[in-house]
């Protein structure tokens, strides 16, 4: 009797969330899959073409290049993000002098719009009018000067760096919460046993935060594989496709060439790949749960 009453009351509570989920997530997902089986004209009429779009995507070297770049972006960006974010979060956990100021400095870029940050860094990277090359030349390191966004070897890392610079504040906040959750008595026990701060960090803190890292890595993969705005504004996918990622390629196919079905097929394949990668990462990084 009690259970039936409980069920009755659960449904109205769940309904708004389910409605939102249905309208803003499931419906677009179903619609995208539906569109991926169609071919569109520029004016909006369409015909069903079965799995043609999927076979085209698989044969498309542009898509393979975009996927490769998306993985590279995720990897390079992840390598730039996590060590620095963990270090900052750890430093802020040490109750250093001026902690609030540093927290503000780290978090400040997050509140800037993507367009503003992208244009700002586009200027910073400018080979002759920007800030980096003249600074390098000023200190006699001309040999390190590059045409950052114009060199296929540096363009993708440069955009990844900008993405990380913009969003690192959020990751620091999440990691800081992880450090805050660590039980002080365990850390204290380590100190009593003679562990230094580095040893404590490496052998106690990091293992205890493994679950959090797993979630954050999956989140980063999902976020960076879908990256679009920074690449679109800073390089448009160039030079010669070296920064082209799935998001920018899909955008061009859909909105420049009105190939909505083809772009939708690219999106569906990306979702499947992301789910698979997230699942693999989840499994690889999964360890027995630590209760503390």
């Amino acid at each position, binding site marked *: 009797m009690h259970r039936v009453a409980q069920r009755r009351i659960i449904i109205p509570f769940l309904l708004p969330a389910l409605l939102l*989920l*249905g309208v803003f997530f499931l419906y677009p997902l179903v619609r995208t899959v539906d569109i991926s089986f169609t071919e569109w004209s520029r004016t909006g009429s369409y015909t069903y073409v079965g799995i043609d779009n999927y076979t085209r995507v698989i044969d498309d070297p542009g898509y393979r290049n975009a996927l490769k770049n998306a993985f590279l972006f995720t990897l390079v960006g992840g390598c730039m993000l996590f060590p620095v974010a963990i270090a900052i979060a750890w430093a802020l956990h040490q109750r250093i002098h001026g902690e609030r100021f540093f927290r503000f400095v780290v978090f400040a870029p997050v509140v800037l719009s993507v367009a503003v940050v992208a244009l700002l860094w586009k200027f910073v990277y400018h080979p002759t009018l920007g800030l980096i090359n003249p600074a390098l030349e000023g200190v006699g390191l001309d040999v390190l000067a*590059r045409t950052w966004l*114009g*060199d296929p070897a540096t363009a993708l890392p440069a955009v990844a760096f900008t993405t990380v610079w913009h969003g690192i504040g959020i990751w620091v906040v999440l990691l800081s919460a992880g450090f805050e959750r660590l039980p002080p008595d365990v850390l204290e026990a380590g100190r009593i046993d003679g562990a230094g701060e580095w040893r404590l960090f490496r052998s106690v803190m990091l293992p205890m935060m493994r679950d959090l890292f797993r979630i954050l890595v999956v989140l980063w993969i999902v976020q960076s594989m879908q990256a679009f705005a920074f690449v679109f504004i800073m390089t448009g996918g160039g*030079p*010669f*496709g070296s920064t082209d990622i799935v998001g920018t390629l899909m955008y061009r196919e859909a909105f420049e060439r009105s190939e909505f079905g083809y772009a939708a097929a690219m999106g569906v394949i990306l979702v499947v790949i992301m789910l698979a990668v997230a699942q693999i990462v989840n499994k690889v990084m999964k360890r027995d749960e630590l209760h503390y």
Partner: protein
Amino acid sequence: MKTMRFLVPLVAGCLALAACGGDDSAESAAPDAANWQTTIKGGPLEVGVLSAKGTPGLAILEQLAKKLEADYAGTKVTLTFANTDARPGIEQRWRSGDPLDVDYGMFDGTNEALRVWADDGKLLDLRPYLEQNDPDTGKPWLDRFSPTVRKFMENPSDKGIYGVPSELSLHVLFYNAKLFTQHGIQPPRTWDDLLAANAKLKSAGVDPIAVTGLFEPYIGMWSDHLWLRTVGYDAARAVLTEGKGHITENPGFLKGLEMLQRLRDEGAFLKGFEGTDFTAAQAQFFQGDAGMILMGSWLVSEMADVIPADFELGVVPFPSVSGGAGDQGAVMAAAQLVSVAKESGNIPLALEWARRLTSVETQAQRAKDIGEVSAVTGVSSPPGIPGIDKVISGAEALQPRDFGIMQSAAKDVIYPEIARLVFGKQDAQQTLKRLDEGLRRVYRN
């Protein structure tokens, strides 16, 4: 089982939503051409504009809107930015049956990809209205427009006219006239002149040519123009955007690439161009960092705020190529056409906007104040672009810019390969080979 109870209705609902939709818009009747002006009534009118907020170009259109509002009670004109990155959103509105009453970029008779809106009946055929006498001049409205731009306005399939030009964009070679005079350099009329100008500018410590490396289609303007001269418009277009024949079959393509390679090898391009975006490259030209820039005639209006007061601008057509098998006197151009939506709720008012926008008075003001080149006869060339009148009068033909590559699937093949060549990653022969592979893949030929 419990999960299914939630999931099944949810998915069913989503599928029902997905099945919904369709065209619920009502098409308004077009007015009788003979007396359309007597049927104009005030009402809301949404007009697409190419000028950004705060620019002198928009100010002129705002004046025009105010005048229309004053002349027809109840009129409220909304000017909607419809250029570049706004286009996808605007086109989505057209697809969903909520078009702007008057819009840009919906038609170009010379470009198959841009004729589909007319072919699918989304645009109003303006010919019947254009053929009526204009009350201001007593001659047909159509007679206002230069015969050279008619091919942009007319749809070859049904001979209808689906757009009128508010301005003409000519692709020309701008040069810093003061710098050229100082160093005794002749404006480059031929390819040899251009090479000589490069050498003199370099020896004067100035980078010869400003170009952007971050927007490949602008690098591609060089190959487009070279191929116009070494291959010819029709032959190049057939291979590049129509998939007819192969790029290796016409030696003019390789010749054009070799000429571009020579420019690169002689260090003709702006230092650091690879990482410079087009706004910066244009600004650097006006700051005297480079002697020349190949760009559309919109350059002057676009960069008006950064052009120094004492800057002396010169302009010539793209240099001719001695012995080139292509069109030596042709100039690449685009007509910026405004079209009227067939589904517009107020077609007479939309037509009146187009008529006023293309009046000699408005066009003369745009030429004088913002440096726009007009396609309307009797309008003087913009004083801000000295020499553009000679370019227009000397042009043997106006050929559509970029061969239509930008709207074709070959865009992602051609321009990145041209960029590789200009960036020094491959030579002309390798570029031709990669272009051939890419074009064969795109056109499956």
